[in-house]
Structure formats: C-alpha cells, structure tokens
C-alpha cells in the first residue's frame, strides 16, 4: 500500500489506543501507544508486511521510553511505536515470540537499561563482561 494509505490504515486500526500520532515527514510516523497494546500493534504491523529494524530504549529520567522501529521498505517509510514505562521497575511484554529478530535487542535493553520483558527472561550476559563490576544499568542516566 502507498505511504499515505499506511498512515490512514494505522490510524484507523489503532484508533483510541493511540496516545499520540505524529508524522514529521512523509517518511516518518511516530505513534505513542499504551504498553498493554504493544503486542497487538506489533502483530498488526507485521501482518502489513513491515520489517522490524530495531528498538531503542531511552532514559528520560522521569520515565523510560522504548521505541520500536519498523520499516515499510516498499515505500521507504519508518513507523516507530513509542511506549512509556515507569522508571523504577520498567517492564513491557516481549515481542520476541512474534518477531524472532527482536530477541537480542530485548536482551540488550534488559542488560543496559534494566527493562524487564515479560516472556523473554533470558538472563545470560549479553554484551557486558561476566565480571562487570560497574553500576548496575550502564546506559541509564545514573548508570
């Protein structure tokens, strides 16, 4: 489908579950959704043929944010799903069973940001050394 139709289709599908919607350019769509809607939203984007590119976790000090970036390669459009989590014990549902390619980035976000992904409990060291004796979550602003 064309990029204009993609935006319309997402808006109508997600409807009231969207906290905010912005399209700063023809190639970028940012959608904030409630964390409990994440899995449904991801399944929908996968069905529409979007490719999961990666996820980025951000420590905004008052809260944590995770952006899931999907690529609609046919039209060169990126759709980024934004969820906001409380900072003390941030947690979200895993999407690794829906998208195998998301397994590693969830492990990375757990290790570096301390975000727990319900359903992806692989607690093995990933990037950090086994004997890392630094502060607990290094990518946090107080890490």
């Amino acid at each position, binding site marked *: 489908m064309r990029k204009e139709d993609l935006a319309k289709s997402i808006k109508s599908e997600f409807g009231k579950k969207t906290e905010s919607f912005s399209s700063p350019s023809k190639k970028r769509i940012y959608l904030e959704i409630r964390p409990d809607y994440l899995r449904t939203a991801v399944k929908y984007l996968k069905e529409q043929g979007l490719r999961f590119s990666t996820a980025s976790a951000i420590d905004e000090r008052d809260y944590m944010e995770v952006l899931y970036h999907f690529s609609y390669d046919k039209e060169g459009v990126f759709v980024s799903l934004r969820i906001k989590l409380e900072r003390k014990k941030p947690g979200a549902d895993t999407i690794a069973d829906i998208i195998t390619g998301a397994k590693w980035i969830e492990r990375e976000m757990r290790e570096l940001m301390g975000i727990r992904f319900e359903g992806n409990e692989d607690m093995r060291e990933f990037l950090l050394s086994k004997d890392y004796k630094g502060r607990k979550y290094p*990518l946090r602003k107080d890490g």
Partner: protein
Amino acid sequence: MAEEKKRHIPIGPYHPLQEEPEFFKLRVEGERVVGLDIEIGYNHRGIEKLSESKHFEQAIFLVERICGICSTSHPFAYVNAVEELADINLPERAAYIRSVVGEVERIHSHLLWLGLAGHFIGYNTVWMWSWKYREPLLEACEKIFGNRQHYGMMKIGGVRRDISPEQGRFLSEKLEYVRKKVDMLDKAIEDDPVIGSRLKNAGVLPKEKAVEYCVVGPTARASGVDIDVRRDEAYAAYGMVEWKVPLRNEGDVYAKTKIRLEEIRQSINIIKQCIDALGKSGGEIEADVNDIPDGEGIGRHEAPRGEVFHYVRSHGGTVPFRHKVRAPSYMNVFSNKHAVVGGTVADAALTLAAVDPCYCCTERMQAVDKEGKSVLTSRELIKLSQEKTYELRREKGERV
C-alpha cells in the same frame, strides 16, 4: 556401531577466520551441526554511552571508529539522523560526494570478504588476488579522502572535502581496472566446479527465515528479500542516478557471493555517474548548521553488510541526549541459528562467515563434546574446511 555422541565445537572468541572476536558454540552429532549458541560482547566499548558526552560533531569521529572496514557507514547514517532532527538540507554536491564515499567503501569491503571466503575454502590465490585488487581503491581513498580508512568525510550538513576533476579521473581509472578483475574473478567462481560444490547449497537461509530473523543487506537479497536502503529511502545521491538492486533466491553462500560481485559492478556505475555530475557543475559542499534543536531523528545507510540504523534524540543541548546505533550484523549473525544447523562441520566456518560478520559493528568457533571438552580447535576447523576442497579437487583429477 558406537552411538554417535553429541559434541560441541566452539569457534572463537579469537579466531583466525574472523577479524573480530565472537564465540560460536556448535553442537555436533557426527559430521552434522545440530545446534548453535552465539555469544557476543567481547568488543563492547560503550559507544552509545560515550556519544552522550560528545558534541554532535565529535560523535561523527566516534562512530567512524566503530568499524575498521565499513568506517563511513556509521557516520553516514548518523549525519542523516541529525540532519533529519534539525531539518538541515544537504547541498546536492555533498550528496554526490557522500554516495561516492559510500560506494568506494562497498567495493573494497566486498573484495575483502571475497578474499576471506577464498581462504576459508582453501583457494588462497582468490584471497591474494582479491586483496591485491582492493589496493588501487585504498590508494584512491588516500589520495581523495585523505586516508585508506576512517576518511573523516562526513559532517553534519555536508562533507569535509570536495572531489576535483583530476581526482575524479584518477578514481575512474582505478574503477575500470577493478571492474575487469572482478569480471575475471566472477567467471572463475562460476566456472570452477569445486568452488561451486563448496558454495552452492551451503548455509541456506530460506526466505521465510530471512524475514523471521529480520536480516538485511546481501544476506537478505541472497534469500529473495528485496530490500536496499539506498533505493527504498533514496538518500544522498542514490535517487539521482540509475542503478539496480541485485536479487537471488537460493539463499546459499554462492548466492551471497554473486550478490556481492554484482553489487561491486553496480557501485562502479553509481560512482561514475556521480563523478560525471560533479564535473558538470559546482556548488557548496556543506550547509550552514545552527544549534541542534530539541527533537529526534532516524538516519540509515546501506552499509556493505546491510542497513545501519542510527537514532538521535536531542534536548536542545550540545550533545546527543540518546544515540542508538544498530549495525547490520546484529540482525544477520543471529540468522546463523538457522543457516548453520543441519549443515556439516566442514561447512560451518564458511556459513558463519557468509553473512560477512562485522563484530565491531555488532558489539562488537569451538567444537566441544557433551562434557564440554574441546574436540576441534579453530585452526583444525579451518583445516577441515580447506581439506574438504582439496578432496573435491583430487576427485576431479587435479593435483593438490
């Protein structure tokens, strides 16, 4: 008959076959690989955290050093992200120059891989020749960009150096030479039945698995997944010149090899058109850049290994508030969980190398038995791969 025991073959972390450290633990039954565990992180340097203490321009030099073979890929994606964030328009001349840098890098990166692949299968002549044909390009990089690698060409809003007509001609001559040699190597690979036996049907990644693992680059295109950031997003000069995205369906090491060879040819086309365009008119090579405002931006580049992704968030200060980097090998290496399993031990090392893994970008091989005892070292694994080739050549009547 003795029961076939399950064994583990570790490859890595420091392995002559690979440029950077990573750890692959192959679980083997007899000659078959039945499982794969991957451990990365040996090269983790905390680049994203470091970036948060660098000025936006300094971060370019930081990310350029993520990788030593595709060094411009990360700056390319990063400046795209910042320019999107700050709504900076890239001058046309800078767009052409950026594409020249990106494509010269693609060619010499693919030739490097070709050499390594040749070495893994015991064809050291392919190795020596591929690396010899890289040299004119690295010479051109030094002459035009100032360095063989880590060119320092990208800046926010433009490029650091122009390309003069004389430099354009110098590069074009080198490309003509390389084109002839690549055609020769391609024909040799096509015609040699032993190379065909080694590469064909080895490490197959079917299309549905390529999609499941979200692979990118030549790894994806060799499995029928038609994606290329240069075409899909048409950044820099890629939407202003004529070129094609090669695609194959076999998903094996042979398909990945052919894709890379064809990409070299397409890169030569792109560079030639860019040099022509640069010769026709002048123009600025950088835009005026003010302070980077509050906001966020996504920047991508089709590196030799696939899509490089950078995300930058600014809170209006002088440094990135958050800088997320995702290299292509992060997605591609994981797909080995499928590609290597079911193949033979002799093919394992080649399959692992076929995604052209760059661990520095990603973060950066041992066979063990059930008790965790090493049964084959890395050196023995390469030898196993090379000996498979020698055996095939002897069967064909060649003296080895």
